C-alpha cells in the first residue's frame, strides 16, 4: 500500500478519516472478541467445579477448581499426562527433524540444480500437495503393518524423512529462488561443490524458511489425530491428542472439568510456539499463496 495515497487522503478529510479508523478498530476488536470466546470459554470451563459445568451458564466459575488440573495430570487409563506429553513431543520433534532435513535437500535440488525432467518432477511435487492423504493411507498402513511397525512411532515419523510433505518442499523452493545467486557463484569459483555450497552458503540463508517449516511441522504433528488413531494402540504410547479421544467416547459430562483442563494442557505448546514465532508462521502462510 503506498503511503503517499494514505497521506493524501488523510490531509483531505482528517476528521472523517479518524472516525473511520475508530470504526475499523471497533470492528476488528469485535471480531477478535467473537473469535476468542471459545478459547476463553475453554479456559474458564477447565477451572469450573463439576456442579457448575452443567447448571450454570455463567462464563466465569464461582471459584477456581484447580483439582481439575490435578485430575487431568493423572492422565487417562493409568497413563500420566507427563508420559502423553513426552510421547507427543517425541513424535513432533522427530517430524520436525525429518521435514527440515529432507525438504531442504529436495528444495535445493529443485531451486538450484539442473537435472533431467526437473520441470516434470517439480510439477509432480506440486501435484502431490493436493493429493488427499486417504488415497495412500491403506497401502501405507499395510506396508507398515508388514514391517511390524504398527503401534510404534515409525509410521508417524519415517515418512517425514522422505519429504512426503510437499508443501514444505515448495515453501523452501520459493524461498531459495529469492536468494541472490552471487554468493553461490563466488563459492563455486572458490571451488565449492554443490554439497559445500548447500551446507555453507544456501542453508544458513534459508534459515527463516526452515524455521517456518519446523514450527508448522511441530504444530501439525502435535495436532494430528487421524494417523495416530490408526497406528497407535498401546495406551503407554498414546499422545495427548489420542488421550483426549478417550473423553470423546464418554458421554457423561461429569468429566468436563478435567477433560478441558487436559485440553488446555494439550494446547499450551501450540500457543507458546505461536506466541514466540507468529511472525514466521504468518509470513510462511502468506508466501505459500504468493511469491514472497
Amino acid at each position: 500500500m503506498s503511503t503517499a495515497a494514505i497521506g493524501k487522503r488523510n490531509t483531505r478529510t482528517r476528521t472523517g478519516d479518524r472516525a473511520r479508523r475508530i470504526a475499523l478498530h471497533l470492528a476488528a476488536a469485535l471480531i477478535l472478541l467473537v473469535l476468542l470466546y471459545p478459547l476463553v470459554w475453554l479456559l474458564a470451563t477447565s477451572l469450573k467445579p463439576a456442579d457448575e459445568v452443567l447448571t450454570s451458564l455463567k462464563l466465569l466459575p464461582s471459584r477456581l477448581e484447580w483439582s481439575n488440573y490435578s485430575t487431568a495430570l493423572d492422565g487417562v487409563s493409568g497413563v500420566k499426562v507427563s508420559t502423553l506429553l513426552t510421547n507427543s513431543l517425541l513424535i513432533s520433534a522427530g517430524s520436525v527433524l525429518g521435514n527440515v532435513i529432507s525438504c531442504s535437500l529436495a528444495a535445493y535440488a529443485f531451486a538450484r540444480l539442473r537435472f533431467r525432467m526437473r520441470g516434470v518432477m517439480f510439477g509432480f511435487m506440486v501435484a502431490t500437495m493436493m493429493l488427499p492423504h486417504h488415497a495412500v493411507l491403506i497401502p501405507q498402513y499395510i506396508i507398515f503393518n508388514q514391517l511390524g511397525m504398527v503401534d510404534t512411532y515409525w509410521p508417524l515419523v519415517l515418512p517425514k524423512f522422505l519429504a512426503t510433505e510437499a508443501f514444505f518442499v515448495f515453501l523452501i523452493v520459493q524461498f531459495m529462488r529469492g536468494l541472490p545467486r552471487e554468493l553461490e557463484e563466488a563459492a563455486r569459483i572458490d571451488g565449492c561443490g554443490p554439497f559445500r555450497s548447500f551446507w555453507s552458503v544456501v542453508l544458513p540463508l534459508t534459515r527463516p524458511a526452515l524455521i517456518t517449516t519446523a514450527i508448522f511441522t511441530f504444530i501439525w504433528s502435535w495436532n494430528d489425530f487421524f494417523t495416530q488413531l490408526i497406528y497407535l494402540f498401546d495406551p503407554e504410547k498414546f499422545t495427548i491428542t489420542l488421550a483426549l479421544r478417550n473423553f470423546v467416547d464418554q458421554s457423561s459430562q461429569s468429566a468436563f472439568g478435567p477433560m478441558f483442563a487436559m485440553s488446555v494442557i494439550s494446547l499450551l505448546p501450540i500457543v507458546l510456539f505461536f506466541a514466540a514465532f507468529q511472525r514466521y508462521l504468518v509470513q510462511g502462510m502468506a508466501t505459500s499463496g504468493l511469491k514472497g
Partner: protein
Amino acid sequence: MSLTRDPRQAASPPPAGAREPRRTPRRRERQGPAYVFLSPWILGVVLLTLAPMAVSLYLSFTDYNLFDAPKWVGLRNYTDMFFEDPRYWRSVGTTLIFVVVAVPLKLALALGVAMLLKNMRSGKGFYRSAFYAPSLLGASMSIALVWRALYNDGGTVDDLLSRIGIHTGGWVADPDLSVFVVALLAVWQFGAPMVIFLAGLQQIPGDLYEAAALDGAGRWRQFVSVTLPMLSPVLFFNLVLETIQSFQVFTPAFAISGGKGGPADSTMFYTLYLYERGFSASHMGYASAMAWALLLGIGAVTVVLFRTSRSWVFYANEGA
C-alpha cells in the same frame, strides 16, 4: 514478478531467468549431486505415494481384511458403493453440504476481514496474528471438544439463541444441524486464507485505485472493478486449497459424533466413513475403493474449478 503462485503456474517449469541455456551442456554431465539431494524425496514418492496408489487401486477390486490374502471381486466394491450402500451416499451428501457451506463462508469472511485490516495503520500486525491463531488451534482435538460442548443442548449457542427467541436445542444432537457445527468450526479458522488475501491485497498497485477514484468510482465500485479482478488469482488459489482440504475433514467430525458419525449418520463425513469401513469393519478393499472415488471426485472438482477459472480469474500481465 507474477502476482500469484497458483498451482497451475507453479507446475510449469521455472521462469526463463532460471534456465541459462549456455550452461546446460556442461551441467548435464553432473547430474549426480542433484539426485543425491533428491533421493529422500524420490524414495518417498516411489515408496509412499506411487506404489501405495497403485496398490490401493488394486485393492479396490478385492475383498481384503488385512489378514487373509486379497480376493479379486472385480467391480463389486464400486457397484456396492454406488448402488447398494445408502450410507455411502449419505456421507457424500454430508461432505458436499459441508464443503458448499463452509468454503464460501470462510472465504467471504477471510476476504472481508482482510479488506478491513488492509487500511489499518496501527494494530494491523496484531490483529493479523490474532485472527490467524484459530487456524492453528482449530485442527486440534481440544478445540473440536470445545465446539461439541458449545453447541450441545443447553450449551452456550443454544442459550444465546434461546434468549432471542430461537429454540434450536443442541445442534450436536440434531441430525439437521450437526453438520453446521463442523462447518462453523471451519469458518472459525478463516485466518489462514485471510493472511493470504491480505498479502495479495498489498500487491495491488495503489495507482489503480487512484485512477478508479479519478474516474468517480466509489468504494464498492473500486472493490468490484479493481480489487476483485486483481485479487482473483489469490481468490482462486484459496478456493482450490480450501475445497480440497474441506473434503478431507476428519477430526471435528470424529470428536462431535464420538467417532460414530451420529446422530443418524448426520456427521458421517466421507473420511469418517472410510475410516469406519476400513479400520473398524476391516473392509480394506471397500475403503480403498472409497479412497479412489474420493481422489477422482476431488480431481473432478478441481478440474471444474480450473475450467471455470478461465472466465473469472484475471492474470495481470504486469512487468514488475
